[in-house]
Every structure is written in structure tokens, then in C-alpha cells.
């Protein structure tokens, strides 16, 4: 009982702190940045499931993020449907995209999936630009309203903050339940050895398709949140660059954990918005950070894969092991 209490106390405290955030943060900019963090936690949780548990890599998750954003944006602006329908459309379309890509490509080995997802991502980017009647073409789609249920509007920054973190919390909880149960064990077996997992009677193709689809849906949900937070979506957002940054977050987070990637997503998302958390950061310093952001991400990916393959979660595991030995 006490052990259980001890395990859940930090979680409860973090949840409470995040939920109470708007009470003591009155900086609108910071709240918006923290909303972006929540959105990235949602999408990276899907990446963590795919990379950290199933050992697969996607270089096209920006496309699912875009599908979610455009589906939600189109439904709520051009079609004038309520927000919840937009979110539902984002889920459906990203799921369909995920299944369509996963079914043929997951028969293939790692680098083929990576290239297939990369090709799919680039193809979707062309589609976002060319499907002008739906996406608004290169100029983008604007005027997307804040999320609203009936007459209750969740406006930025507080409403969207609470909504995004609420969804992020729910997603983390659900995915945690998945990975601690039977599918999670199957995924870890898959990560260890595909042939071994197959020999244990695990339907590896079915499992991979399901994991990939779930991660695509999470990206779609994140895309919908993004569209309603910013109010405007354009094709340049959903680039290969974004997909690689998402990989960086998952890699830095480490495999076999959800907390690690969530922490990594938080830290890496805050880098280009360093001025929100470091008061008095000069404009020049911020410009310097943003200028070298991509270089640093690239370097971090390489360094983590070479010298700290466990990432943040590996570090936390080691800390916990040390604490256990000490007590």
C-alpha cells in the first residue's frame, strides 16, 4: 500500500501542478508555449509507442499531424461543423492514412518503413499544397475557431492549455495501460527479435499495423489541437524537418518508457521558446538559439544514439537503480 502510494505521489503532484498552472501563470505567451508542449507530448507518445516499444521508425509523422490539422480545420471552417466533429474527422482520417500506409509497408524491415513513411510524408506535403479547394494551397487555411462545446468556448491561452493538457494526460494514461498489459509485452518481444516474437505466436504484422495506426491517430489528434490553438494551418509546417524533430524527441526520450519521451518533448519544445522560461533573455541570445536549433537537434540525435542509447528513460532507470541500492 505504501509502495503504491509512493509510486503514484509524484504522478499526482505533477498532474496537480500542470492543472493548477493557469492559476499562478498569468503570462499569456508562456501558457501558449506550454500548450505547444502538451501537443508535442501527445504526438511524441505515439512516436514512443512506435519507436521505443515496437522498434519501428517513422519519418512521416508530420504528415499525420497535417492530416489531423487540415481535417479539423476544413470541417470547422468550410463545412461549419462543431469542434468535436472536427476532432473526430482528424482521428478518422489519420487512422485511415495510418492503416493504408502501414498495411503494405510493415511487411518490410526497418529502413524500408523509414523510407516509405518519408515518401508518404513528402507526398502528403505535395497534396496539402495542391488540394487548394480543401487546404487553401500554399497560402494555408485560416480562421479556424477555438474549440467549443455548445456555448462553452475553450479560448487561448487558458482554455486551450487545459484542453491540450487534459488530452495529453488522458493519452498518457491510456497508452500506459496498453504498454503495461499484453500488447506491451508483445511489442517488447517484437523490439527484441521479430522472428523470436513470431515464434512465440505473436501476430507481428497485425501488432505493427495497430501500433502504427495508434501513433498516426495520436499525431492526428495533436494536429487538430494545433489547428484550433493557432487558428491557421499551412503546408510548410508539416515538413520533413518536423518529422525529424519528432524523431529527435522520441530518441532523446529513450525506449521502453513514456515518461522519458514526454520529458524530452517538453525540453526540446521549449528550446526555440527559451525566452518564455528564461526571463530577461536577450533578443540576440534567442535569435542565436533559434539559428542553431536544427544543428543542435541533429547533433543530439547522433550523440544520444552513440553514447546514451537509453536516453532520458535510461538515465531515470539508472537513477532509480542507484536509489534502490542505496536504501
Amino acid at each position, binding site marked *: 500500500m505504501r509502495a503504491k502510494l509512493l509510486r503514484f505521489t509524484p504522478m499526482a503532484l505533477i498532474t496537480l501542478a500542470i492543472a493548477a498552472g493557469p492559476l499562478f501563470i498569468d503570462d499569456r505567451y508562456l501558457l501558449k508555449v506550454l500548450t505547444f508542449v502538451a501537443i508535442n507530448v501527445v504526438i511524441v507518445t505515439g512516436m514512443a509507442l512506435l519507436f521505443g516499444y515496437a522498434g519501428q*521508425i517513422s519519418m512521416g509523422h508530420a504528415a499525420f499531424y497535417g492530416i489531423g490539422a487540415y481535417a479539423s480545420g476544413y470541417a470547422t471552417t468550410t463545412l461549419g461543423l462543431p469542434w468535436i466533429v472536427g476532432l473526430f474527422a482528424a482521428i478518422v482520417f489519420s487512422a485511415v492514412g495510418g492503416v493504408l500506409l502501414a498495411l503494405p509497408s510493415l511487411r518490410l524491415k*526497418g529502413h*524500408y518503413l523509414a523510407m516509405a513513411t518519408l515518401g508518404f510524408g513528402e507526398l502528403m506535403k505535395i497534396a496539402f499544397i495542391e488540394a487548394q479547394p480543401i487546404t487553401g494551397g500554399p497560402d494555408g487555411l485560416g480562421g479556424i475557431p477555438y474549440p467549443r462545446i455548445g456555448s462553452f468556448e475553450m479560448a487561448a491561452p487558458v482554455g486551450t492549455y487545459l484542453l491540450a493538457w487534459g488530452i495529453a494526460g488522458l493519452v498518457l494514461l491510456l497508452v500506459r495501460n496498453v504498454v503495461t498489459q499484453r500488447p506491451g509485452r508483445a511489442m517488447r518481444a517484437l523490439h527484441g527479435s521479430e522472428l523470436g516474437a513470431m515464434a512465440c505466436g505473436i501476430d507481428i504484422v497485425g501488432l505493427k499495423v495497430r501500433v502504427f495506426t495508434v501513433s498516426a491517430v495520436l499525431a492526428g489528434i495533436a494536429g487538430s489541437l494545433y489547428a484550433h490553438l493557432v487558428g491557421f494551418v499551412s503546408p510548410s509546417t508539416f515538413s520533413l524537418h518536423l518529422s525529424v524533430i519528432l524523431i529527435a524527441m522520441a530518441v532523446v526520450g529513450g525506449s521502453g518508457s513514456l515518461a522519458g519521451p514526454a520529458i524530452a518533448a517538453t525540453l526540446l519544445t521549449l528550446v526555440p521558446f527559451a525566452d518564455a522560461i528564461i526571463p530577461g533573455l536577450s533578443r540576440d541570445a534567442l535569435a542565436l538559439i533559434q539559428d542553431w536549433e536544427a544543428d543542435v537537434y541533429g547533433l543530439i540525435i547522433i550523440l544520444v544514439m*552513440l553514447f546514451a542509447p537509453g536516453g532520458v528513460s535510461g538515465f531515470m532507470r539508472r537513477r532509480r537503480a542507484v536509489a534502490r541500492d542505496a536504501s
Partner: protein
Amino acid sequence: MGGSELLQFVISGLKNGSIYALVSLGFTIVYASTGVINFAQGEFYMLGGMFSVWVFATFGLPLPLAALLGILLTAAVGVVFELLAIRPRKDGDQLALIIITVGGSLLLSSLARHFFGPDELALPAFTAGPSVRLFGAAIERQTLWIWGLTLVAVVLLNWVYNKTKLGRAMRACAIDRDAARLVGIDTRMVVTVSFALAAALGGLAGLSVAPLTQTAFDVGARVGVKGFAAAILGGLGNPIAAVAGGLMLGLIESMSIAYLSSTYKDAVSLGVLLLVLFVRPQGLFTRSRKEKV
């Protein structure tokens, strides 16, 4: 469409196809020695063009010398990348190596932006003068250079592969790395050399096309995807098939411009990539092999 117009599209297709063939050879060489797709291959293409322009403009060297230095500098980057980022990961875990090359691609392109600047750059044509006429179609002189240089590169590579000790070591590595090590082949050296060769070929492609299409720090990824599409079209790991795949992809793209619209040029080659991956991942010219435990 008239015959001469069609010929014009074929010429343009074979021009782009030669570029894809060179990039695709880079993928194939690294894949043969490591079993990994090098996602940074497109950046070598970018660096070849950028280094040549930089050497040419900064030091005022004659163009052939600038081009040669461009290739050598790109090859040097390939070697440094292998030594610093690939070799230290000794277990050769494929997922890890793929991710490292993804990071390398991001790092190389953004470093290039800092070093060469964000603007588009161009190299002058290798030989000035009007286009050559052929049955009513025009062939730019630079296109002749691209074909000639591609041919020289392929012949040289073929010679290295088939006639030299190094080539024998590389072929042995491609068949079975552990067995190659057992018979005393320095497999680590082979990996380094294959990165140098892949970078040199990518660099050659980038600098020979730089006079026709401008080059910039962010051109690598797109050409990388096309080069990979070409490699997979032919069948990974086979140099001749890689060249054939490159030329085919160039022609397919060109025909899609001729009969559809230039808007869908990139979409068509991405479609070819996905189609081949889904339907025949072992490529058109290679037989499939079952995975063994």
C-alpha cells in the same frame, strides 16, 4: 506530340536520370558494406555543389580544379561522418545507424546553411556555347558533361569493384561481413571507403548539375529520396541495377511531365517509390531472399 518534342523529354529524363543514378549508387555502396540506408546521402549531393561553388568563388580556382576539390572535400566529409558517427556504434544495430544518418542529414544541411549561407548558388557551365542539335531536339552542353562524367564514374567504379583488391574486399563484405572479417578483410576500412565513395559520387552529381539548377543548403533531402527511389527500383545492393533504376526514374518523371503536368513530377516519383516498396521491395532486377534466423 511530335518526335522531336518526345526526344527532348527523353533527353531531359536521361539527364536527371544520370543524377539519380549517381546518388543511387551512393546508397547502394553504403548499403552493401553496412546493410544500412544512409539517409544523409542526399546531403553529399548538396555538399558537392556547395563546396565547388565555394572553392570556385572564394579562391578563384579554375573550374575543373574547383570541381575536383568539391568532390574531394565531399568525400572527406563522408569519411569524417563515418569515423565520428557510424564507427563508434560498434554493435552495428540497424535502427540506431539509420537514426544516426537521419541526425547526420539534419546536422549537415544546417551546418551548410551556416557555412555557405541561406542563398541559392550556381556554378558556371563547364563549357560555354550553344546547345547541340539532334533530330530537332536541343542538348545543353552541360547535359553532355553530366552523361560523360556519369559514364566515367560508373566505369571507374566497375573497375574498382571487379579488378582491385579493395573491390574484392568490398564485394566480400557485401556477401557476408563476418565471413569477410574471418578471412582477414579489414571490414571497418571497407565501410569507411564505401562512405568516401558514396560521398564522392553524390558530390559529383551535385556539382555537375549545379550549373543547370541552382543549389542551396536544403536541396539534399529531395534528391536523396529520388536516389533512394532509383536504388529500390533497381534493387538495393546491385550497382548496375542502381544505374538502371536511376535512368528509369528520370525517364518516368520526364514522361509524366510530357503527358501529365510538371506539377506532379515529384508526386510521380514518390508514387513510384511507394509502389515498388509495397509491390516488389526487392527491386525489378533482383530476386528476393528469405530472412534467416
